[in-house]
């Protein structure tokens, strides 16, 4: 989004040195986004060593304590330490976000390639994808969650199914436009087999838009997970996740706002970081795409 502003275009008279600072100057959103995201990942990994206690430890005497030196983010209705719960909760969001992004990209890529190359399959596949896409994704995930027990794996699966059509549509579009390119025609004329054409000529060109799309899917998946957990159809309540903590704080939000506030802040900042990264990657990887959105 910032790519059109003249100030973000790097000065060419600067020495051609691929230093970190240069990258930061050129793509500030990537730098900011990835810095925040890496910090959150580190926090999630090292949660046990960051002054946390057992996030599921119940203490009836310590219920709904305001944030203090002892409980940095306060405690919830069952006396559990919210700081510890929020830090451990990062794990769920990150695992769901990354898993959905990877799964949806890989499956969507496969479906998109099939649709783009096999004319007969195309019509059927795309009608199915249109059908899935016309069910609002959160609603689709909710409906799928209603069929299964709440578990992180099922949450990942439900959100992935809802996100696949977007990737496959994108890939199909790229494939259809590439098939008309002279160099693909040349490859066909030279007798190159279809699998080789896909791997050598088509795949590399789908990579950039897929990576960009995957970051947006990652962000959307994190929000959907939180929403599912918030309405009680997501991650089981035993596992601390940002959505669950907010769900538990829901009844008390008018008097104990901090219970809702801290997981909300972490969720928002994490999603913001992923979105910034996505915008930056879009500008960096595909200048044409940057112009359209």
């Amino acid at each position, binding site marked *: 989004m910032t790519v059109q502003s003249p100030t973000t275009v790097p000065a060419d008279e600067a020495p051609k040195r691929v230093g970190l600072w240069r990258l930061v100057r050129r793509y500030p959103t990537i730098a900011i986004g990835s810095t925040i995201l890496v910090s959150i990942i580190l926090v999630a990994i090292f949660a046990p060593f960051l002054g946390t206690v057992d996030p599921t430890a119940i203490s009836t005497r310590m219920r709904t304590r305001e944030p203090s030196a002892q409980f940095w983010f306060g405690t919830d209705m069952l006396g559990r330490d919210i700081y510890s719960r929020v830090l451990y909760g990062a794990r769920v969001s990150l695992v769901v976000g990354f898993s959905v992004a990877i799964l949806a990209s890989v499956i969507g890529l496969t479906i998109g390639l099939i649709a783009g190359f096999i004319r007969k399959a195309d019509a059927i596949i795309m009608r199915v994808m249109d059908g899935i896409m*016309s069910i609002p994704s959160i*609603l689709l995930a909710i409906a799928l969650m209603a*069929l299964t027990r709440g578990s992180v794996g099922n949450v990942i699966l439900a959100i992935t199914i809802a996100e696949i059509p977007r990737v496959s549509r994108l890939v199909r579009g790229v494939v259809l436009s590439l098939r008309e390119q002279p160099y693909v025609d040349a490859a066909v004329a030279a007798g190159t087999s279809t699998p080789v054409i896909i791997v050598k000529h088509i795949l590399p060109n789908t990579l950039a838009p897929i990576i960009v799309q995957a970051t947006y899917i990652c962000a959307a998946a994190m929000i959907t997970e939180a929403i599912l957990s918030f309405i009680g159809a997501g991650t089981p309540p035993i596992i601390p996740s940002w959505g669950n903590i907010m769900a538990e704080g829901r009844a008390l939000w008018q008097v104990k706002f901090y219970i809702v506030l801290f997981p909300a802040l972490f969720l928002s900042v994490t999603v913001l970081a992923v979105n910034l990264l996505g915008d930056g990657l879009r500008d960096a990887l595909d200048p044409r795409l940057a112009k*359209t959105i």
Partner: protein
Amino acid sequence: MFVYVVRRILATIPVMAVVALFVFSLLYIAPGDPAAVIAGDQATPEDVEKIRRSLGLDRPFVIRFGEWVWQIARFDLGTSIFTGLPVTQLIAQRLEPTLSLMVVTLIIAVSIAVPLGVLAAWKAGTIIDRTIMGFAVFGFSVPVFVVGYILAYVFALELDWLPVQGYTPISRGFWPWLENLILPSIALGMVYIALIARITRATMMEVLQQDYIRTARAKGLSQRTVLFLHALKNAAVPVITVIGIGVALLIGGAVVTESVFAIPGLGRLTVDAILRRDYPVIQGLVLLFSFIYVLVNLAVDLVYTLVDPRIRY
């Protein structure tokens, strides 16, 4: 033109068929045997089998699907397991709050987002542009319930300007109705505003580079006339398309917004149905929302082919 309209309407049929098949499968594979539920605890396996046969549950999938579609066509969405009431009746009771929320959100979002997008495109590259687009990224990132709680905390609890939660039917007056919808609509509209503002900016940037805009400026027309009358008109198609596509965000977001603001609408009905595993209700709601979404996008497609003389079929 007429052919196009007919073809576009016919094109929604396969889409709705896929949706219907999906929604039906949902109930088909849902855990729990309706026959066993009806038979009760003391039933023998033979009793359950008898009930299953009398309900037609032993027949093949295709026949049951056909019957179910026929049932839907007569506006019968089945009976709620939990309340024993017809699903259509449950939906009808909850329709007004959700429709109100969506309409108010739509109006607020479009009237904020389009001018912001136009302004950003006009001032492209300046600090104004970057502030607006930064705000858009923010709008994409902050989930609807986070915005909802923060708005409710600041404007309802701390400042006491607006009611905290609840819903007042429009029959009890326009202002009481609107008053309750302002905060939820802003919360729900956040993502929508971000989306529309981005698209408006992108399309306006393209339009503003065209020759006829330079001509209009050269004629000495005011900036406002050029932007809103000449440019925006030609940027309308992508913007309207995104408004249509974004309705999916509104539907998904309404489920959460209604929970945060205690609005007794379809979103709350969805959440309650999920928690009670009331499959016929879930089925009916998914079907209804998808149907609305498909219809909105059909309407959008038809509207701009009618409005934009450049599109000829």
